[in-house]
């Protein structure tokens, strides 16, 4: 259990889009190493980080995520010939939009090549959880929306 989270404070909800090469290998390493992480994140594997549409990130925020992480291979290491360069630029531009609409780019974590070995995935996520902890829960004011049957 993350020692900074008390029973009363729910851990921030994070949706992780992880490319199934570097990033998913990193998540796997965290699992095999039995790192202890808060159970409030969900992981969606994608073929390449460039497959993550800005639309998906926004939907994630609208669906109860407090933070979204997009994880891919380090720049220069994309097996789809630098498609991740495009992904990084697109996500950074999305950060501007998030700032504009009041969600804030702090809620979007980009990790390219920094979460793929040993304890890195666990450390990167833990740092993100700490970053998100003082921010209000986005889900809180969206609860009425989420509870509508049509939304599920």
């Amino acid at each position, binding site marked *: 259990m993350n020692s900074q989270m008390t029973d009363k404070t729910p851990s921030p909800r994070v949706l992780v889009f992880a490319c199934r090469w570097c990033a998913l290998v990193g998540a*796997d390493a965290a699992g*095999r190493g*039995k790192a202890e992480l*808060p159970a409030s994140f969900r992981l969606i594997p994608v073929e390449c980080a460039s497959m993550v549409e800005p639309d998906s990130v926004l939907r*994630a925020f609208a*669906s*109860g995520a407090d933070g979204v992480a997009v994880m891919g291979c380090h720049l220069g290491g994309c097996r789809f010939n630098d*498609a991740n360069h495009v992904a990084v630029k697109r996500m950074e531009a999305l950060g501007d939009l998030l700032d504009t609409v009041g969600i804030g780019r702090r809620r979007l974590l980009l990790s390219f090549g920094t979460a793929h070995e040993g304890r890195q995935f666990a450390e990167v996520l833990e740092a993100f959880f700490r970053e998100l902890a003082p921010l209000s829960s986005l889900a809180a004011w969206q*609860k009425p929306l989420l509870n509508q049957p049509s939304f599920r």
Partner: protein
Amino acid sequence: MPGVIAFLCRCCGEIEPTVDLPALRERIGREEGVAAVELRDTLCLPEDRAAILKAFEESGADRILLAACSPYGKVGNVVAKLSAACGNDRSRVRLIDIREGCAWIHRGDPAGATAKACDLMRMGLGFMRHGKQSADAVVSVRPECLVVGAGSAGLAAAGSIARAGYPVHLVERGAAGGGMVKLLSHVYPTDAGAEERLAPYLEAIAENPLITFHGKTRVAAATGYAGDFKIRLASEKGEKNLRVGTVILATGAGVWLPRGLYRYGELKEILTLMELERRQREGKAAAKRTVFIQCVGARCPERPYCATICCPSSIKNAVLLRKADPDAEVTILHRDIMTPGHILERYYRSALEAGVRFIRFAEAQPPVVLGEGRVGRVEVFDAISGLTREIEADQVILSTPLVANADNAKLAELFHLPLDGYGFFREDYPLHPLETRQAGVFICGSARWPVASGEAVTQGEGAAMKALSILGRKEISALSMSRLPEGKLGHARIEDGSCSGCGNCVAVCPYGACALQPVGGVFVSRANKMRCRACGSCTSVCPNGTVQMPEHNARAVGAMIRRAFAEGDAR
């Protein structure tokens, strides 16, 4: 719709007690569209396979959801085999990781872990309602190969393919094959004569009926994909169209002249290595005192690379001069002697034993060539002794680098390939140095990076072997165009009617798979199934959501996102 059968793996107790599997089973069993939920100790052992298939058949379901360990574990292979039972539709089998991804990382929070496992499984179910498999395309492979360039690499490639039994079109911009080796007198490290070295390859062109040599010809146009490239050749005799299964680019490198350096062109008897080779061929290379200067125009800001062949070539010529005249003084001025490995290092030693002198200079203090009318002497600061030396010279040989062939840029455009900063063709990946990002197009020899004739031959043979993996098949399917055993994820699909022709996908695709085409008076994009590698870049830049990957389409992803925190929320 028949429904989904879910298998929960206990993993022999590795998942419980953190994840409450009976509760999970009960909860998932209540989901709409779930035909059955089975709890098993293991899913990945040989004895499990039959039991899983039997349960699947008896349930009447048409899709399978597995909740087990990581996709990198053995259960990953199970997924591949199970999709065979689902009509080879991989979108009908999905694996959820509830061990490395859940039970093992949330041992302190069983309630949270169980809620997460439930969310992950419901995300999988939501995905499977909308995930589809891409339609495959099967291409008949044209069992012929195009080799561009008839130097060492091209000759070796063409010869290998022909000897393996396939027809080859060998295209060469010059009148005959031989490439740069034709201009040499001897090759290293064997010191075999250049003619002797080329002879067997040139004979093969002449004698092997499978090789069609197109001299004084260039590639004018190229479209298509692995298995079926449509090539247009242009020569003075006109144009010719070919359809080939694979293309090997072996265009070699170009020569660079050191104008303005070391008084080249100003004083007589200052030659490049190539000019020395010509003199060797004519028997006119002898001189009493020869000085070689290495790294002329190489490993410098304008050309920050080592061109591989200059050190051994100078050594080769230096030893030949010494052998021809034991009284000849031969000195090599260098910044490092680049003779890596076992064979070349021995070659270097043999030069020392043959009496060749080596003097090291620093990049910041290059030698100075002096003379009037013709070269007289060379002044060099010997970095190791710390003394300035004056060497009398009757000829000075400048070792210049190979540079990229001027034709590479055009070919790169035709085949949609990247060039590196120096103009050489870029390979795809660290362990695949002969492959490019276009499936079916291979590179070898100095077109890829300056190499000596021997290594060019090795690379040509290697490229031929890679080509054979395509040529040897009657057909290849688009979904198999991937390095992975299960094939690629899918390919991009563009919905008719909703493409606005903006061209974003065309610009972003690393493989040139998307192209705008006129359809009914407007331009719309079409994705080529063979070229697409399923990276998904196009789906992210499409403003209309028109481009989708059926295996990862927006509806399916949206369903996952909506369900991601549902149970977590209920907690």
